[in-house]
């Protein structure tokens, strides 16, 4: 009887629920876990009720995950996706932040470059795939290039907006104390814009993680996106597809938690304070 594990699960959740009244810090996890488990149960019931043979139940997805881990296939694809995202993202940071600082600060540069940036920005990175493959081949190069494109625009546009938002008092303070050139950027423009830049980094990394999966599904031969495609094409292994989706979600959460740590530095905390 396949439902037995779920009955045990529901029973233990009930116990957890009542025990939670006496829990300390762990208490805030009780509700999310219960809701997640409830969704797994709904998922299971929906699949069995529909009688679908090909859509996996959560248990089947779990088994597929175990199989993926054992096969060593997963780690190679995780590393491939993470490498493309990290390399492309850092390239975008290295170009996007300095460019955004200058474009945001200098009205002339803004007038010259902003229309071009705004014109390129709405083009989905996925649309660049043919050119990416033409220029870089079906390897990491194309992936890194696409991730660069997808993170560059949020970072550059976010940095420009951050610089343009610097308050008049801080600009005047800088003028009053004679700050100029590199010193002006290092002591005022960059730190003043930093909280908003970090927010744009967060958005950019989120977009990058979305785009890499799509890009690997369309035009690459490794990575988590390719794994999803491969699992479907080679024998309709939808259980592997579901397991990979969960892996993608989990890594996405970890990436976001990592980048959010930047918000805790003393130099930027002021930017997130409740007003």
């Amino acid at each position, binding site marked *: 009887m396949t439902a037995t594990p779920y009955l045990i699960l529901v029973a233990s959740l009930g116990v957890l629920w009542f025990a939670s009244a006496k829990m300390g810090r762990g208490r805030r996890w009780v509700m999310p876990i219960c809701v997640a488990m409830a969704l797994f149960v709904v998922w299971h019931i929906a699949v069995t009720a529909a009688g679908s043979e090909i859509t996996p139940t959560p248990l089947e997805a779990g088994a597929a995950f175990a199989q993926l881990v054992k096969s060593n296939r997963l780690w190679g694809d995780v590393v491939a996706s993470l490498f493309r995202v990290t390399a492309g993202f850092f390239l975008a940071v290295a170009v996007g932040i300095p460019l955004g600082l200058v474009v945001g600060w200098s009205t002339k540069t803004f007038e010259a470059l902003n229309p071009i940036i705004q014109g390129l920005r709405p083009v989905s990175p996925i649309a660049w795939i043919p050119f990416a493959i033409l220029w870089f081949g079906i390897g990491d190069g194309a992936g890194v290039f696409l991730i660069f494109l997808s993170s560059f625009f949020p970072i550059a546009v976010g940095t420009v907006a951050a610089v343009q938002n610097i*308050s008049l008092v801080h600009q*005047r303070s800088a003028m009053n*104390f004679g700050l100029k050139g590199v010193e002006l950027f290092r*002591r005022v423009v960059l730190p003043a814009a930093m909280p908003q830049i970090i927010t744009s980094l967060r958005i950019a990394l989120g977009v990058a993680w979305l785009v890499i999966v799509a890009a690997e599904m369309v035009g690459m031969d490794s990575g988590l996106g390719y794994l999803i495609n491969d699992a479907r094409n080679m024998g309709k292994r939808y259980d592997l597809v579901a397991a990979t989706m969960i892996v993608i979600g989990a890594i996405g959460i970890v990436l976001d938690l990592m980048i959010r740590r930047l918000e805790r530095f003393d*130099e*930027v905390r*002021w930017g997130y304070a409740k007003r």
Partner: protein
Amino acid sequence: MSDEVAQARANENAGSTPGEARPKVVFEGVDKDFDQGGQPLPVLRGVDLTVKEGEFVCLLGPSGCGKSTLLNIAGGFESPTAGRVTIDGDPVNGPDARRVFVFQEYGIFPWASVWDNVALGLRHLGKAEQAAIIQPTIDMVGLQGFERSYPMELSGGMKQRVEVARALAVSPDVIYMDEPFGALDSLTRLQMRAEIVRIWQESQTTILFVTHDVDESIQIAERIVVLSARPGEISDIITVDLDHPRDLGSPEYGRIKNRLFETLGVSHSI
């Protein structure tokens, strides 16, 4: 008038009146228009004023009378439509690190510690030289123990003290204050007024202080310059002949207050 002539005149003034403080900040026929949808909006009209070295002058007037604009012109952040401002005989062409502005909305940097904020104007000095100035300045404004704190951890009054310390650290010859205590609660404001008078007496700096608060001006200033409603013109100049600490209940205080209210055209009996 060329710079040399102006300088010569300033020197002459200094020489011809021994024992009198020499002119520091001089406004000559200052007009200012803002652009309002293509139409000039007159903000200041014919302001002539001489602030003497080491003097504490309040610019008092109703909201929107152009008193902050006048201060911004002196600070070099805006230029007059007509007339000019000179300091020590030299025309003001832009902001200058020797004359420091204290803003109403905190101009200190929230991304830097108290220490680093005060160090802003001393960045060209060595670490030891910086410390020799920063620590006494922080002590002077009563912030010892908060050197490593960030502005978001401080109260409004303490933030304003940091900004005053940042200004004092460079030993400026003029400090411009634009309603610096406007955002503080009334008790902190009283305390800060006493502090700024004490600091002024210790540092001998020329202070131009903008306020719309009649009591504030009588409590702190040596001279009160009253501006009319827009376009701002000087409608009265009152010398406050009271020694610090000032007795807020003295007849002279009441007399000045009545005169100010009369000039401003408001009744203060409610």
